[in-house]
Every structure is written in C-alpha cells, then in structure tokens.
C-alpha cells in the first residue's frame, strides 16, 4: 500500500465490466462501474402483490399506486440473501434480461457484492455458488459493506484540515462504521479498509422493526394498520425523529387528566403532527402537516370531511428511540451508544481516539432528524472527557456503501480481493469463502 511498493505479481487482465451490487433488505443498490461514477439504481428488493392480485417485481413496485393491503416477499432476511428464487428474479431483471437497465454479460464482468458482517457460512456458500455456477461471473469479491466506506475521502466527510499529506486514494486509516439498515444495526471498526472482526457488534433493531413497531402502536391507538406496511413505512419516514431529550418530549405529549386536558396536548406541544392518509381514490400519497385541532373537531367530523387525518404524538420519537433504548419495546439488547462502547472495550485504548473521532453512520435509519446529534451526545458520555467524538453522515447514507465499493473497484486492493471463476473451480467453494473472510487481512 505504500506508494513505492515492490513489483506486483502479474495480474490476470481485468474483465470488461465491473458490476457493483449493494444487496440490501429494503433496496438493491446496483450500478456498472463507469468514469465518472454515475449514481447507482436504487431498486426495491422485493416482490409485491396488490389487492387485485397483480404482482410487481423490484423496480416495478415503485409504480404501485394503491399500496393498501399489499403482500410482500423479500429475498433478504436478517441482512442475508435467503431466498434465491426471488433474488435471482430481481437480479435478472436488473442486469441480465433483454432491456435490463444494467445489461451486461456476466462472463465478461467482475462482480463486487456487499454482505452484512457475521453472515452464516451456508448462506455465503449459496451466494458464491449462484454467482459462479448460475451466473458465471468472470471474477467476484464478496465483502462486508461497512468496510467499503473506508474508501471514501473520509477526511473531507469529517471536514478535517488536511495537515497531513494523505496517500492518494488510500482507505481511511482508522474509522468506526455504524450501518443502520432495514434488517439491523451493526458497529464495525475498520483499520485501513479491514474490518476488526473481533469487535464487530450487532443490534437487531433496523428499519423493518421500527416500521412494524409503529404499525403496532398505531393499531393499538387508532385502527388496524398491521397489513399496511407500505403506508406505515411512509408515515415513519415522513414523521419520525430522534428526540434530543426523550423525557422532556414524553412529558410534552402527556394528554392530561380525565377532567382536564393538558394545555400542551390541545395545541400539540410543538410535537404533534397530522398525517393526512391517502384514500387511494383521489389522494394517492399521504402527507404530513402541522397538527390542527380544528381538523379533529366534532363539527368537522359531522360535516363529513373527506380528509382522514392521523394525529401522531409520541409515536414520532418513540419509534427511532428503540435504536438507543431497545428495552423500551422489550428487547434485551444494549442500545447503539452502549454497543459502540462494548465494541471499543475489546480494543486497545490507543485506537479509541482514532475510532471515536471518525464515526461514520450509513444506512436508511441515520436519515432520521436528530440521529447523529443524539448519537454523538450519548457516545461522549460513555468515554473519557479527553476523547473527541465526531459523528459524520455522508451526503447520501443509503448509497454510501455502494459509492465506497465503486472507489474500491478502481483501487489496487481489489486485485488482491477478487476470486476468478477459474480459481473458484480450482480451489473449491470453501477455500474461496476463507479467502473472502480473510479479505486484506493482516497482509
């Protein structure tokens, strides 16, 4: 990795194309490497069937207008590709079929695929077999998504003055990647592009759990929304935020005693919002608006207003709160700040300053307002006073891992990581799996 390195062993010529897939549980981020890099396609990673029993695959799902009572089937479960029948259908339509947006010939293409840390060996083996035996990719690297983020210009993300001339294009020396996606949230310390496996930790709270938890609360408090995952997910994305002061906000949402409504409750306390529900008739999209007590008055209800509004109060911040306090919903795991603390405690103290000053957060959940501020505040409380804690969120935390993978795909490191189809045939599946697990390793 030093600029004046010794002559490299001759590399097999690089395939014509490089396909990069960040295969998430909610969305598949897919793109062919190009110069300059164009942003990836973000494709819903699911098959859906609507009320009229029409089926939608992957990107087609974006066109569904009536999302009520939608049935969903997802190939990725707990972060891993589990159902290959569905995943292949979505992959084929993305890069194989006639007219596919990223059409390429796998035998002339290198595949760079992300996976979640601590995947099950059997699922990794399935994946490798499909990639080589079913698709026949020319070469392939399967690596932990978080580590790809090290290839970004991390010092620019953290707005650090470049007082040290950094080696051009080298991965960040020390960083801590928090990936909070649809399946779960992981903490991965990364040293020069390599995951410190012994310190990787997972919290089983992700976007899916939050959506389902919101559906449960709304069903208990308003009406049954348990089969309205799509709508509830939209409500979550539009309305939820991470509270800077949870206790204060809970108090602000108190409704008062039976005889006397609490004044702040009547005005909304600065927290309440109305979500105007779609009727899938004239209104296809829901909309978040300021809380208006008049909207809920009896006279308006009697007049037969056609607007159906759902008032959201503490649901707005109790949902993302479970990433910080999973026990709020009965889950016996440490919250994200404690998880970071536990991860670092397994590492030499000398690495702490570097890791804490370079916490990069990616994944859909970090888009909640207040997420990075709250995380920064709580991590500070868990470490010695002289540790500088900086939390940065890339411009697009959903495609950040894909973008990082695209930079890696142009970096000399990739040649050490990929396995060719020929090597797979010669070495066999289990050796290939070991090579991927080793990654750049200590070499």
């Amino acid at each position, binding site marked *: 990795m030093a600029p004046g390195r010794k002559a490299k062993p001759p590399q097999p010529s690089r395939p014509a194309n490089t396909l990069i897939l960040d295969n998430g549980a909610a969305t598949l981020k897919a793109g062919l490497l190009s110069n300059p890099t164009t942003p990836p396609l973000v494709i819903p990673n699911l098959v859906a*069937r609507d009320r009229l029993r029409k*089926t939608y*695959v992957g990107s087609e799902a974006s066109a569904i207008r009536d999302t009520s009572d939608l*049935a*969903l*089937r*997802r190939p990725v*479960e707990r972060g891993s590709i*589990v*159902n290959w*029948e569905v995943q*292949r259908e979505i992959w084929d339509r993305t890069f194989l079929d006639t007219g596919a947006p990223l059409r390429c010939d796998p035998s002339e293409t290198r595949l760079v695929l992300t996976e979640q*840390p*601590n995947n*099950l060996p*059997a*699922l990794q083996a*399935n994946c490798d*077999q499909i990639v080589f*035996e*079913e698709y026949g990719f020319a070469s392939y690297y399967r690596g932990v998504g978080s580590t790809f983020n090290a290839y970004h210009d991390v010092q620019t993300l953290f707005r*650090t003055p470049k007082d040290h001339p950094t*080696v051009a294009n080298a991965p960040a*020396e*020390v960083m801590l990647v928090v990936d909070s996606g649809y399946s779960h949230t992981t903490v991965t310390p990364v*040293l*020069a592009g390599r995951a*410190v*496996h012994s310190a*990787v*930790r*997972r*919290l089983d709270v992700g976007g899916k*759990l939050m959506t389902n*938890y919101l559906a449960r*609360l709304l069903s*208990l408090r308003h009406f049954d929304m348990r089969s309205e*995952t799509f709508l509830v997910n939209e409500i979550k994305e539009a309305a939820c935020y991470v509270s800077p002061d949870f206790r204060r906000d*809970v108090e602000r949402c*108190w*409704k008062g005693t*039976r005889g006397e409504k609490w004044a702040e409750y009547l005005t909304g306390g600065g927290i309440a919002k109305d979500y105007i529900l779609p009727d899938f008739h004239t209104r296809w999209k829901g909309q978040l608006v300021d809380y208006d007590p008049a909207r809920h008055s009896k006279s308006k209800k009697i007049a037969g207003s056609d607007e159906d509004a759902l008032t959201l109060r503490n*649901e707005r911040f109790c949902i993302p709160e479970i990433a910080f306090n999973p*026990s709020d919903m*009965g889950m*016996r*795991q*440490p919250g994200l700040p*404690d998880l970071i603390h536990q991860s670092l405690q397994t590492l*030499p103290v*000398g*690495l702490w300053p*570097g890791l804490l*000053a370079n916490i990069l957060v990616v994944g859909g959940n970090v888009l909640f307002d207040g997420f990075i501020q709250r995380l920064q505040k709580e991590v500070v409380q868990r470490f010695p006073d*002289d540790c*500088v804690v900086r939390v940065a969120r890339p411009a697009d935390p959903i495609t950040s891992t894909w973008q990082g993978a695209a930079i890696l795909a142009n970096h000399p490191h990739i040649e*050490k990581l990929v396995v060719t189809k020929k090597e797979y045939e010669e*070495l066999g599946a289990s050796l290939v799996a070991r090579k991927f697990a080793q990654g750049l*390793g*200590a070499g």
Partner: protein
Amino acid sequence: MNNFGVFEVASAKTTNAPGWAYVPDTGHRPTSTLAPTNRKRARNTAPGPSLGDLTARQEARLRKEVDALMNDGNRDNTIPLPGKRSQGKTGATRKILQSQKTFANHLDDFHAMQQAEATAAATAASSKRGSTLKNQTDMDTSMTDALAVTKPHSPILKPLLTHFPPPHPGDDDPLLMSRVPSVPSDEEIRALLSHPPLTYLEARGTWDGNDAAKPPIRVFCEVCGYWGRVRCMKCGTRVCALDCLETHREECVTRYGL
C-alpha cells in the same frame, strides 16, 4: 422519578374494583397474583422496574411480540413469481433456487453443525492422536498454503495519521495536556486483524455479565405512550392513569374475559 404533571391514581394501597385493581408501580414488588415471580429471574436482573418483574406469561408474550415484529407479516413466501425461469444450471444451484428455508432454519442448521463439530472434536481429543484430528490438520495446512500471500513489509497504519483531534489552543499547556494513549504497534494491529469473523450469535450485542451497566428499564402506557405507572391486575398491561385504564379494560375483557 419525574413527577411533573402526574395524576396519582393510587397510593401505596391496592384499590379493588370488581375484578380489577390498580397497583401503584413502585419498583420492587411481587408482580401479580396470577403467577408468582420467578425469584431466580428477579435476582438476575437490574434493580428498579425491569423486565424481570413481569410474569412468565407476560414475558413470553413480549418475546413473541418482538419476534413477530422482525417479520414481514404472516403472508411471506406465498406470492408466486410471474413467468418462468430455468430450474438452475447445476444440481447445487437448482437446490439453492428451490430452497424455501428461512433465515431461522439456516441458523438452526448452523447451531446443529457447531454442536456436532464440538462433539466430534471432543471425541477426537479423547482418542489421542486420533486420525480425524490428523486429517483435519493436514487439510488446514494445505488450505493455508493455497491462501498464502506475499507479506508486504509496510506497516498497516501510518503512525502519524492514526488520529485527528482538532488543534486546540491548550494543546501545549502542560496542565491541559491530554494523556493520549499510544497507538498499538504494527504487530498488535496485525494480531487484531488476523482474528476471524465472529459467528452470527457471537456478534449480537448482549448485556451478558454486565448487568451493572444496564440502564433502568422504562415502561410506558400501552394506550397513550406516557409513562406506564399503573398496572392492570388482570393481564399486567401498563397504563398511565384512570383514563387509559378504562380504555384498556374494554380490550382486556375481550381478550381474557371477566
């Protein structure tokens, strides 16, 4: 505890309504008359209101609810795909493509395999210099050979670049000088990086053996989300006050009867 704006429902005594009771939530206390608290479990949890003061039935319900929230609803895997694709090019891929196993199935398989390996290892160790063990070692050696990479001699981290605290006017003041611990040596870094990935369960964050660090568990009103200071004697559900208890009552009667 913050008592701001709290309408006290009950004091230390228990008020009985026909078939109902309000129980003030004061922390440590036997839970309900329906199921005695498991003492062992209570001992294993942090002080203060905690999941440990739930009854076994409530705990089971809670765990089931959390598990249910991890799924996509109960209609997964029932949507047939449109059109026809090939059955798979090799026997192996055909099997993978047809598999209807869930993640939970694969996780169970993995644990069963781990258990079998542990048993096999124990057997091999007892029959000393057993042939199984020898074969295993031979295989490992050949694998390592196949994976051997030429070791570059440059350090993994560049010592000067490892951390970036922003410059501060007090940096040179001996009184304010922070005692920044030294960065681990290249050898230590290499040792750290040679650690293999943890298994799925090993990586899961837990409070194992670290109960002191556990924050007190907060309980909420199931009806409105405010602090759940009152408990329904019938089912253990937490509510905040009279208003919400009444709302809860209707549902409770439907679920558990009078």
